[in-house]
């Protein structure tokens, strides 16, 4: 497997760094003031052509690799900003519709996700389940040429923003069958949809994640993504990609935490010399650096499998299992380097630490990924 960073890859990284330096501060300032994403955020990403990486050009995408996208995400992750989440979502939902959708669906729903006129959403989680499709309570009942959706979804990102979402529902027309979940592409401004206010998380400041309620929401049958009964499969494939993207962002978060710790350990003078000159600190720096690098290589391996068209669900789970505790540890160590300052919101490491915590519980929990990876290892005939 070739992990070489090509001149093209380097230029994408350079553009991402420039975006971090020149554009991101404005986004973060808005989010700090309004506790929400800027309304123009998706348009801004579209203007910089950061949407539709793995979407063919004919549907408004860039027609390039997921590898290029995770290089971008790693850089954006270094900012500690929450704002990379909508970018991930528009990219991954566009790719998902291209993978499962009909030609008509691709033409209708994908271009707005690439040109910045629609915010994407994926919705599975409900008050009683985050991963078990048998526990879904949101129902889709057939009615003529439509389905009627009722129920609620929990912790849904960008669901209150205009655009389209993929919603996984219990399909009442499949009652009694082994797989009874169906994925629907739903216009989030459809009559009958309402939202809660958004959750305040430990990290992810400004994220607009909230609950969404469906009251007799009518959706045309033509909006079924894939086939009826494939809802859970669509979710699993989507979230496998999302996990790798999330991990790429967290590699950036860990890298920045390491860099901040290094910088501080050279600035802070203890007993007449920089704190970092003490063995206790530079040993920790060495560990932080190699942990982040190992996570990066794991992410590269997973994304290259996805780009090669190989199955990537298990390796994606392994990425979560491997990277989550390591990046969390690196950011925690960075806080510790800074002493009381690190526990203060004045310092970036506090934000990075809180951001890293989201990886263990969002885009599937660490534990469910241990189950996926562990069961796969157990059942695999190879070593």
């Amino acid at each position, binding site marked *: 497997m070739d992990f070489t960073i090509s*001149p*093209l890859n380097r*230029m*994408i990284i*350079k*553009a991402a760094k*420039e*975006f971090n330096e*020149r*554009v991101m501060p404005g986004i973060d300032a808005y989010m700090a003031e309004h506790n929400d994403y800027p309304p123009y955020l998706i348009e801004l990403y579209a*203007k*910089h*052509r*950061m949407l539709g*990486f793995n979407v063919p050009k004919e549907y408004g995408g*860039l*027609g*390039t690799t997921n590898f*290029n996208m995770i290089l*971008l995400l790693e850089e954006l992750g270094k900012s500690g900003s929450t704002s990379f989440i909508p970018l991930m979502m528009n990219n991954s939902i566009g790719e998902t519709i291209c993978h499962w959708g009909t030609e008509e669906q691709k033409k209708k729903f994908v271009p707005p996700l690439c040109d910045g006129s629609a915010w994407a959403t994926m919705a599975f989680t409900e008050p009683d389940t985050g991963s078990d499709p048998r526990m879904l309570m949101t129902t889709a009942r057939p009615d003529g040429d439509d389905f009627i959706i009722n129920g609620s979804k929990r912790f849904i990102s960008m669901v209150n923003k205009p655009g389209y979402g993929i919603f996984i529902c219990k399909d009442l027309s499949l009652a009694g069958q082994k797989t009874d979940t169906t994925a629907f592409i739903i216009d989030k401004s459809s009559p009958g949809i309402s939202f809660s206010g958004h959750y305040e998380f430990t990290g992810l400041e400004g994220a607009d994640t909230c609950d969404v309620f469906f009251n007799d929401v009518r959706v045309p049958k033509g909006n079924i993504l894939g086939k009826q009964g494939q809802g859970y499969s669509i979710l699993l494939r989507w979230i496998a990609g999302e996990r790798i993207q999330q991990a790429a962002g967290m590699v950036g978060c860990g890298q920045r935490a390491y860099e901040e710790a290094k910088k501080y350990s050279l600035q802070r003078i203890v007993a007449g010399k920089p704190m970092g000159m003490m063995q206790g600190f530079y040993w920790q720096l060495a560990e932080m650096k190699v942990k982040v690098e190992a996570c990066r290589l794991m992410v590269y391996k997973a994304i290259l499998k996805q780009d090669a068209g190989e199955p990537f669900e298990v390796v994606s789970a392994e990425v979560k299992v491997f990277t989550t505790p390591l990046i969390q540890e690196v950011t925690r160590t960075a806080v510790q380097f800074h002493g009381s300052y690190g526990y203060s919101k004045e310092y970036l490491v506090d934000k990075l630490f809180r951001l890293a915590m989201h990886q263990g519980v969002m885009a599937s929990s660490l534990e469910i990924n241990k189950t996926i990876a562990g069961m796969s290892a157990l059942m695999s005939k190879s070593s």
Partner: protein
Amino acid sequence: MNIIVCIKQVPNVTKVSWDADGSLIRSGLPTIINPVDKNAIEAALQLKEKHGGKVTVISMGPDQVQEALLEALCMGADDAIQLTDKAFAGADTWATSYTLGVTIEKIGKYDLVITGVEAMDGNTAQVGPQIAEHLGIPLLSYATDIEVSGSTVKIKQKLGDVSRLLEASLPVLITVEKEINEYRVMPIDKILEAFEKDIPVWGADSIPADVVNLGLKGSPTRLRKVFSPKLEKGRVEMLEGTPEDISRQLADKLSAKFLI
């Protein structure tokens, strides 16, 4: 509207370090597009987006200048031409502007030539005006705004505390100030497209130039010496009195040392 932008690759002086003698350490110094030249590219791209046409970027320098041209393509320029030849080496501003001017003549049809006001390594602000002179077209310098309407171009010119509105008929050469715009972050689609493009390399044989006007041979300027001012330790003298007294004392002392 066909626009030609001349850019220069310069050392990134924000990352410069000096050796113990105070000399600039040049080896391994990263290079960048002269910052105000990025504003020139941006101005050209904005005009193209408004009026259509094509943006061609040219730069003279060693092989590594291709990196700067590639970045210009990544910003959205349509074409780039690299001018590299041993015969171009050691050019002063006159020989540089001659070479660029001849190149522009070879490219042919153009409506506008845009350059940054000056390069951050030389700070002469001479190349742009000299290209205009060579081409025999009007010069609109120190632009902080450009407006094209039909065959007329208007600029707002910044001259210290004075601003002027200037107007000329196309074609013209405009030198731009950094205040003219915020240059764009390279859009990902343009990066992908740029790597599909070739950047042709033109040497002295590729342009209709008289070789006696090229490089060091064609440069009337002779650089005698480059040195870093020597740092000397001195005595601090505190001046006392009213602000007016202090100002007067300071002026007298500087005058006595022929510093003002």
